[in-house]
């Protein structure tokens, strides 16, 4: 991260005083032993306590905080629940963390127009929680959904396991209340379905807190399907599993999820959760939705296709209990890996057709580093999550792990994919942006930030390589 601005550090008392003039005392955290709680997000390898952290309760309070920070020239790092795996909420010593966690109310629910409006600090799962008794749900389901906030989902354009059918956050976001760095409050979008002019909502979603602070969101909610049922398939090699995924999609079925696990991952989860998975090279879990008859119709077609690929195991769920068992291993995969090792979770996306090639190349790339890689991911949409296993206590292992991770992400770009499918760039992949984009490609993106945040004070050191943003970011006094 860039060096902190000493002038700001020296003015801490004054900045804190001004923040206290617009917020209650319990909403301004500035004692060193307290700001430590905000020193990192879920990317714990990087840490730095902020100048202060504020926890406003309303859009007006957010606007007041931003106005002060704008006047003081203090960078602001927005934070939802702090579950970012990419360091999106990592502070610098001269920045104020603006946390929206206390803003978690449901503001409006409308089933006839099929939307819910919430304050952005509300957690993802509790959005569904607010409507599920009435037969609705909010579709994007990142695996951190119990903890992660809608604000962070919007910042990172979060996905989840069910994107093949329902899309990601941007496809389910109808409107936002956005506070700009200068404190002005904008309403963008709403319960209607398209933009009047430029699709500003589309560019705000996924901008990693660099264009404004979202305080309220209008989200599309969907009627819950009547039911869902998975089938589990085991294969002797990754190529066959990959070909089976393509064949299912080509046949006209649109499963709600297609999950893939490779042998290292199957073995680790089996040891951890005893889900009864077959010991094979590659395992697929394919889930379809609908009424019981519709599920039977789709599963019959999927099973017929799968048999053509000579699976070592084909297990159709016949009950809720069997469904839970099929999902048990997949859902415990990350926990299982964490049990046996430290790991780094990557997030590159590749064209589905390149799956076998990429899995083979990952194995080859990992050999010289002497590190193992386990794969568990959303195969339907090509969003891979290679888990690089390492030992955090072993000197040099983290660096090796990061180098291998960069190699794997470059491979994703090389085959026509991208660096990150749902976690975001943050600080983690910032310096790899050169591998995916030309300077002109990035210049076009930087212009958008110039328009929304001319002073470059919002989360300024993220997403783009520091060398190309240096001339735009505020200059720190040496």
């Amino acid at each position, binding site marked *: 991260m860039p060096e902190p601005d000493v002038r700001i550090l020296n003015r801490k008392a004054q900045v804190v005083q001004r923040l206290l003039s617009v917020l209650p005392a319990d909403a301004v955290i500035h004692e060193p032993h307290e700001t430590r709680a905000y020193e990192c997000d879920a990317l714990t390898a990087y840490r730095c306590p902020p100048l202060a952290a504020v926890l406003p309760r309303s859009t007006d309070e957010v606007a007041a905080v931003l106005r002060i920070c704008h006047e003081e020239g203090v960078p602001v790092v927005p934070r939802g629940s702090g579950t970012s795996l990419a360091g999106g909420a990592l502070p610098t010593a001269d920045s104020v963390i603006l946390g929206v966690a206390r803003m978690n109310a449901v503001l409006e629910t409308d089933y006839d127009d099929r939307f819910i409006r919430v304050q952005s600090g509300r957690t993802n799962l509790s959005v569904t929680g607010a409507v599920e008794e009435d037969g609705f749900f909010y579709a994007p389901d990142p695996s951190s959904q119990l903890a992660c906030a809608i604000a962070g989902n919007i910042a990172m354009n979060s996905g989840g396991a069910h994107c093949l059918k329902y899309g990601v956050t941007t496809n389910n976001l109808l409107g936002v209340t956005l506070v700009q760095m200068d404190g002005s409050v904008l309403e963008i979008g709403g319960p209607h379905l398209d933009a009047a002019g430029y699709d500003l909502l589309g560019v705000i979603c996924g901008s990693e807190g660099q264009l404004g602070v979202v305080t309220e969101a209008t989200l599309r909610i969907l*009627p819950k399907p009547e039911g869902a049922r998975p089938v589990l398939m085991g294969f002797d090699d990754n190529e066959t599993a990959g070909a089976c995924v393509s064949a299912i999609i080509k046949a006209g079925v649109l499963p709600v999820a297609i999950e893939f696990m490779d042998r290292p991952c199957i073995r680790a989860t089996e040891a951890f959760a005893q889900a009864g998975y077959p010991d094979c090279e590659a395992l697929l879990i394919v889930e379809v939705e609908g009424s019981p008859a519709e599920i039977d119709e*789709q599963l019959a077609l999927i099973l017929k296709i799968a048999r053509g690929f000579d699976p070592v195991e084909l297990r159709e769920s016949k009950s809720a209990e069997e469904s839970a068992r099929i999902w048990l291993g997949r859902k415990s995969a990350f926990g299982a890996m964490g049990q046996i090792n430290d790991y780094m979770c990557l997030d590159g996306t590749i064209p589905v057709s390149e799956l076998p090639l990429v899995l083979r190349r990952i194995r080859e790339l990992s050999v010289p580093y002497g590190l193992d890689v386990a794969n568990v991911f959303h195969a339907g949409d090509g969003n891979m999550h290679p888990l690089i296993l390492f030992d955090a206590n072993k000197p040099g292992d983290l660096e090796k792990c990061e180098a291998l991770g960069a190699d794997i992400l470059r491979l994703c770009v090389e085959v026509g994919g991208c660096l990150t499918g749902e976690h975001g760039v943050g600080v983690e*992949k910032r310096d790899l*942006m050169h591998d995916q984009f*030309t300077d002109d490609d990035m210049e076009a993106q930087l212009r*958008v930030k110039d328009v929304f945040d001319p002073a470059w004070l919002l989360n300024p050191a993220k997403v783009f390589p520091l060398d190309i943003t240096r001339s735009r970011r505020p200059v720190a006094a040496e």
Partner: protein
Amino acid sequence: MGAGMLSPRDEADLAEAIRGANTPLHVRGGGTRGVPAQGEALSVARLSGVTLYEPGALTLVARAGTPLAEIEQALAAENQRLAFEPMDHRPLLGTQGTPTIGGAVAMNASGPRRIQVGALRDALLGVRFVDGTGMIVKNGGRVMKNVTGYDLVKLMAGSRGTLGVLSEVSLKVLPAPAAAATLVLPDEGPDRAVRQMAAALRSPFEVNGAAYLPGQGTLLRVEGFADSVAYRAGRLRDLLDDAADGDGDVWTGIRDAVPLGRDGDAWRISVRPSDGPRVVAAAKADRWFMDWGGGLVWAALPEGTDLRARLAGIDGHATLVRAGFDTHARLGTLHPEAPALRTLSDGLRARFDPRGILNPRAMATV
């Protein structure tokens, strides 16, 4: 091709043409969508052809000038389709020519299925374009999940060629359904129609078309595998009174706003679905109908009528789709934005096209 029309043969040539331009450019694909024109014509028609199609990955990449019909044909051969059902503007506008994929993207042209599968912008995975300075930019890609950098893909969808000229687009496509069914409910007025559509859209039966045509009634569509369609159509019949079987061809006319006829100005009004009847009552239109469960109202009014003044107090926006040059200039093609939003829009415009030469009047507001 008309005299003096710029017709670059590839992306580099397009960039050269824009860099060399010293007058406003009127960007066109097939010229069917009635964007108010000014300046020298710049056609992307020669940037044509599907460059990649992977049915197993549900992905298609095509140059911007590729005729939509060519793309739809390629998809049909693999039993797939563009799920967002792009409008063909020719019946409404009386334009000639060949609709292109670039034109559809520039207009974010999305049909009845928008309520279930999303708009064109939701299916748009990546773009390549040349901005107003002649700089070539790519954004997004050809994979479904991609959060690498800012999403300029959405910004380009519906920007009517004012931020850059598209050279290539990549799209998520979907399987074509094996079967479809359309149900018709008797006409009992717009209020009742919107309530019926809401009841259908609230159900788990995956309704992907919900429209109301005065005089014909409420129309609902389900699509999918044969048994599933039969089941869901049956459940909808149980849910709603007096549903009869309808003809699926009706959806093409709804998509293309055919019920508005060829006379008068044509407006497209986007509101929260339950406000559809309020719009209808306030608009006092000569001809009108509702799509998107009431969220999209199409209305034909006498030439020069200021419909937006009649709709004051209803949230949403009204776009002038068919009108004379003077009416476009006097009323503005697009709905006026709130001042703070306009500042952002103007700022984007000024940075992507600092000389203001790309389709200068296409997004005009007053």
